[in-house]
């Protein structure tokens, strides 16, 4: 028997995981540091909420629209900014997040600083996990495809990738659009779960939260990102007994992780390897072989991420 509090945490985890998986495609797979991911979530949340409140269109359509509008904003942001590298891109995306926040604070249709309230509560566990399942499926398909490998090539060495014929700008914009699409979906789910949204809920800290999930879990690794989202959603709740020291311990935990596992919890692993390794985990010999093979196969990429 699962009680409502547990369901609450599971739903929040699902919403966070969808958002983090979107960011993972941009930051983990393609290697483009984005600090404005909450901006996309905000666009999605407001799109879905406004459609529900003003147009009374069906929930599923609103969710989809949330993703599409957020994805389009990803394209709009991506075209000018993805020609930038590294720190410059990070600052540009940070600026985007702030623009979205301030824009929604001043628009009439978004309710300004009062936010939008009385959004019908439609998101439930089943919807969130259906969306999470679709997200996982799409992400694993992308990562295993030709496009996915091209994105990883951009992450490892963009100049080399271009030399090999990868159209880096176009691919980066596509990755941005897909990542933003899923952030938008998670925003739509969020708005219809909490029933109240305010531009300030999608500030810089929200972007950093999702980035932490990706980095903590392991950039580029789907199970890693899921685990990162689970840990970072659950830790603040689990640490409640610490009362005022809660967020200190949470922070210390993050520092500790980055010192001892800079690759993230599951950095450089993917689902198949994890399953294989756990099957063979009982057999020490096989485990050693598996380890050796892993080193050969993805050692390079590991160094690349770290």
């Amino acid at each position, binding site marked *: 028997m*699962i009680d*409502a509090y547990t369901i609450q945490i599971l739903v929040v985890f699902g919403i966070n995981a969808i958002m983090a998986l979107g960011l993972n495609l941009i930051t983990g797979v393609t290697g483009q540091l984005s600090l404005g991911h909450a901006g996309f979530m905000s666009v999605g949340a407001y799109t879905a909420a406004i459609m529900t409140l003003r147009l009374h269109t069906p929930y599923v359509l609103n969710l989809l629209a949330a993703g599409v509008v957020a994805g389009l904003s990803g394209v709009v942001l991506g075209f000018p900014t993805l020609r930038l590298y590294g720190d410059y891109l990070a600052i540009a995306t940070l600026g985007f997040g702030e623009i979205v926040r301030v824009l929604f604070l001043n628009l009439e249709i978004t309710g300004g600083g*009062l936010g939008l*309230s*009385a959004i019908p509560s439609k998101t439930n566990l089943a919807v969130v996990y259906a969306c999470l399942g679709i997200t996982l499926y799409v992400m694993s398909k992308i990562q295993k495809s030709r496009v996915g490998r091209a994105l990883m090539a951009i992450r490892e060495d963009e100049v080399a990738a271009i030399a090999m014929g990868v159209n880096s700008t176009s691919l980066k914009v596509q990755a941005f659009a897909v990542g933003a699409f899923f952030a938008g979906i998670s925003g739509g789910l969020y708005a219809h779960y909490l029933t*109240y949204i305010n531009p300030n*809920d999608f500030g810089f800290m929200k972007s950093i939260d999702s980035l932490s999930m990706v980095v903590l879990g392991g950039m580029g690794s789907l199970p890693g990102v899921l685990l990162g989202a689970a840990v970072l959603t659950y830790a603040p709740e689990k640490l409640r007994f610490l009362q005022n020291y809660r*967020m200190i311990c949470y922070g210390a935990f993050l520092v500790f992780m980055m010192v001892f596992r800079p690759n993230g919890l599951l950095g450089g692993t993917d689902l198949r390897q*994890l399953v294989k390794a*756990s099957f063979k985990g009982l057999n020490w010999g096989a485990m050693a072989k598996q380890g050796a093979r892993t080193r050969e196969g993805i050692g390079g990429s590991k160094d690349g991420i770290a």
Partner: protein
Amino acid sequence: MNVKKLISLSIAALLIVSVTAGCSGGQPTQKSAEQKPPEQKLADTGPIKIGFLGALTGNVASYGINTLKGMKLAVEEINAAGGVLGRPLEIVIEDNRGDKTEIANVTKKFVTRDKVAAVIGDPTTGGTKVAAAICQENKTVLVSAGAVGPGVVEIGDYIFRDVVIDPIAVPAVVKWLKDSLKWKRVALIVSVNNDYSVGQAKLFEDALKKEGIEIAIKESIQDGDTVFTSQVTKIKKANVDGMIAPIYYTEGALLMIEAKKQGLNKVFIGGDGLLSPVLWELAKGATEGCMVFAGFSPDEPDEITKKFIDKVKQVYNEEPDMFHAQGYDAVYLVADAMKRANSADPSVFKTALAQTKDLRGVCGVLTILPNREPLRTPINVLEVKGQKFALKARVPVTAPQ
């Protein structure tokens, strides 16, 4: 590498196990020294639990901390006097950092795990709206000690608040301006990029029109502005009796400095946005005589309020503010309803709560109107005198027609 792999896998496995175990464990993680027996069906013995919803850390922590301090005082007093229905009150405390998702998490925990009879908080309007939807759905009473924005009690019949709300306070204050101060022409100053200011200015405009006070001039400013020369010059020319300034204290203080400089010796009046010591810290003598209306007055208190003020000073060694007072009153509001309903069941005592009439609190007398909005009377008009807010007048408030 082999070892690393093992470590990573075991950490992963450990975390997954702990996450799932923790999720389904269902053990109450709450502090509470005297934990009652685990299987407690309908909690009609043992303490009556009240959830405190507010931020103890983060940006809005000062509101939450003071609300909690006020609540603790009230609970101590009530328990010392024998509790409610023969049972002591117990506050369940969780910090929500002012984060909407955490507010939802905490509220869910209160209503489903702790099975609180009532939730008191959140001091912010946005937080209250998130929590209210959950409380309404789970049939738990929520009393917000601080949400002043629109659209709160409309969420449902389990949702209440114990604050002074502008739609009720502003008309009373304007009537007082006309009757007592004989104001006939006023200037209205509004900060256009501040929702609080725009909303309150609209209420002032309606009330002024109704009372027949002429708005001689309406001037716009913006939050963050520092130069108000042109606005003050225009106001000076308009020859008004006073200035109505529903703005925040920083802009308020700067505006008053400019007015003093240009020799505009008229009085400003505003809402609790101006209620801050920053006024005289920033503007030195220029804010003298400036008026603010608020629910709680630490000056010239009556007997109940004086006892409360002394207690806050004695226990916490600090001056009580609005949030201490609202937290304190909220506990008494809930306790009073439980006593009258003779039940700690939210679905029963919510009806009594809605019928609250003339309940004495430290912020005056509270009546819950038929639309579940609170009516607090009197409203205190405070005046800056030296380095403090002195009581200027107590304005009685009547229910709007």
